[in-house]
């Protein structure tokens, strides 16, 4: 599926202060029974966000909210940037996790590290995962939790910088191919299919070298 091109982005931050947040926590298994890509936002972090047991097809508007969960804090109600701790998105490969984050409204994820499969899945869905040093992430957590106003961050994808609302700016590192895809919103299957001749040539060579693979 072609994704939406990513523009330069300004948004407020929700700080999720837990390490090793797994994809079971991001979107619990009962919601994986859907055969669609959309509609997962209301069940994002379901077990942390609500006090009752979540089931597919519920009207989440009437469910009891967990007042201690960060996304239920009015300060972070409109956050589009999720600040997290290390190894965010570990565990199951379910792409429902980035689908849920995007459907909820997040565009940017910041953490000291992301799990590999989650990172790949996020990029495929036009979410921007930004890896920053632990010390910088610590500082952003302080800024995001101090005071009554949420922290606003600007991400400039052309100059590869992140600006924390008057508290300084920092370079960000994004894989050049991912950067290209995010900026242009490419359909990467379409891109791969432009190399169909290379794939056919590989298959022909491999068929001769390793015929059992094609038997």
């Amino acid at each position, binding site marked *: *599926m072609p994704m939406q091109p990513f523009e330069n982005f300004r948004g407020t931050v929700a700080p999720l202060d*837990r*390490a*090793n947040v*797994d994809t*079971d*926590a991001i979107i*619990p*298994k009962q919601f*994986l*029974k*859907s*055969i*669609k890509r959309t509609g997962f936002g209301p069940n994002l972090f379901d*077990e942390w966000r609500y006090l009752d*047991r*979540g089931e*597919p*097809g519920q009207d989440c508007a009437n469910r009891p909210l967990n007042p201690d969960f960060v996304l239920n804090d009015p300060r972070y109600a409109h956050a589009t940037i999720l600040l997290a701790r*290390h190894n965010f998105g*570990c*565990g*199951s*490969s*379910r*792409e429902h996790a*980035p689908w849920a984050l995007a459907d909820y409204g997040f565009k940017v994820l910041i953490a000291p*590290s992301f*799990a*590999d*499969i989650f990172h*790949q*899945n996020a990029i*495929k869905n036009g979410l921007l995962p930004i890896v920053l*040093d632990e*010390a*910088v992430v610590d500082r952003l957590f302080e800024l995001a939790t101090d005071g009554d106003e949420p922290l606003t961050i600007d991400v400039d994808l052309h100059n590869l910088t992140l600006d924390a609302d008057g*508290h*300084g*700016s*920092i370079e960000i590192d994004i*894989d050049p*191919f991912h950067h290209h895809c995010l900026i242009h919103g490419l359909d*990467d*299957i*379409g891109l*791969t*299919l432009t*190399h*169909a001749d*290379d*794939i056919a040539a*590989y*298959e022909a060579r*491999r068929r001769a070298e*390793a*015929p*059992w*693979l094609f*038997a």
Partner: protein
Amino acid sequence: MLDPGRRRPNRRRRAAQHLSSPHRRGTLVGFVFAPETAPMPTPRTLYDKIWDDHVVRTDEHGTSLLYIDRQLVHEVTSPQAFEGLRLAGRKPRRPEANLAVPDHNVPTTDRHLGITDPISRIQVETLEANCREVGIQLFDMADKRQGIVHVIGPEEGFTQPGLTMVCGDSHTSTHGAFGALAFGVGTSEVEHVLATQCLLQKKSKSMLVRVDGPLGRGVTAKDIVLAIIGEIGTAGGTGHVIEYGGDAIYALSMEGRMTVCNMSIEAGARAGLIGIDETTIDYVRGRPMAPQGALFEQAAAYWRSLNSDPGAEYDRVVTLDAASIRPQVTWGTSPEMVLPVDAAVPDPADIVDPVKSGSYRHALAYMGLAPGTPLADIPLDKVFIGSCTNGRIEDLRAAAAVARGHKVADSIKLAMVVPGSGLVKAQAEAEGLDKVFIEAGFEWREPGCSMCLAMNADRLEPGERCASTSNRNFEGRQGQGGRTHLVSPAMAAAAAIHGRFVDVREI
């Protein structure tokens, strides 16, 4: 200022010493006696060799188009991929390179009733319709070969050494036990592979985890991999492909090797690999989807050439002494929160790092455990033996050996055994293992993922505590509010009999 000075990862590579596969020593000869005029080939790892043999092209950013030989497909992560193909007017490039099976949603009781949950049923029916439409082979619920994707792939010979394999499931790392580069992907990549038989990939870093020396009695592959995760952490393998080496690894059966590679993802690595030896080749020989006759011998010669060369370098090397590994039990909500069965629950107050200390506090609150509690004193409610980690015949034999002639403790509400596949179930029944379990008070179920992730009716209720042979002790993994302790099959069976954890070495 936000910028503390940029750090670059240390890229120094370390050479592996004395890898214990006999074939590694064998490949040395070709290099040592190479003609003087020929350049000395750079020693390569198994990962390097499989990678090199599958690169279709590499772009200016260093991103490669990697050819994918085989894909396994299940009902949960594929419907949106097939839908994507349809919307774009695309067709699978090689339907015959895929094998599909429903496993996550299938019931483990009363199969003749079909799937009663309508949403689960639609997902399984969607898989069947999609496979029919594009010509992908499917083992449906009535097929005796139906089972967990990562059990049936090896069982059918669909999994072979030297392959690149993917599946929309993180435990695809299991197949690395065969010396195949196998990793989990998301649904967009399932669609990408269906459409192009390729994936866009950057090469990962390499890590060698060597487990040297003999394992102690009662210590299994599950304990090895849990000990490794305890050592390097759940992000220890992030960005790496792990190769497991050392004599403790090569002494394992294929089932044990699959258990180790299966949980590579819990160590943060997308893929785990074990070199190819005669144990590997003997397992593959004669399986229905493996090459047959002369083609098999040709394939086997190629497979033997793939092992890491002596002197091949890794970005990171970790060594464990097999003799020091004791039966493992997880106490928290991440697989790295693991200790030997004779240890006690740790105290978060002893942890200096505030983030880690906070994680420990959260975990203990969720698990309902107090610091200092001996793991052996933790009472259990349920026991689950099964999953792609430990649902194979060898696992059932190990559990049955402990259960034989005993009874499940009265305090255990449910102890269930879920074979990894229909063929594992049939084999176990041929050996009489089903009777051993049933006589001891275990339930003997139909194959599937079951309570590893509780997408079907098999789940924990809030607050229930389970000894489980699965792979993830995450919050809510086995049911909202459920508390999971990961252990080996023998440890799970012993826990069922005693109603709490016991050290299998002492029974």
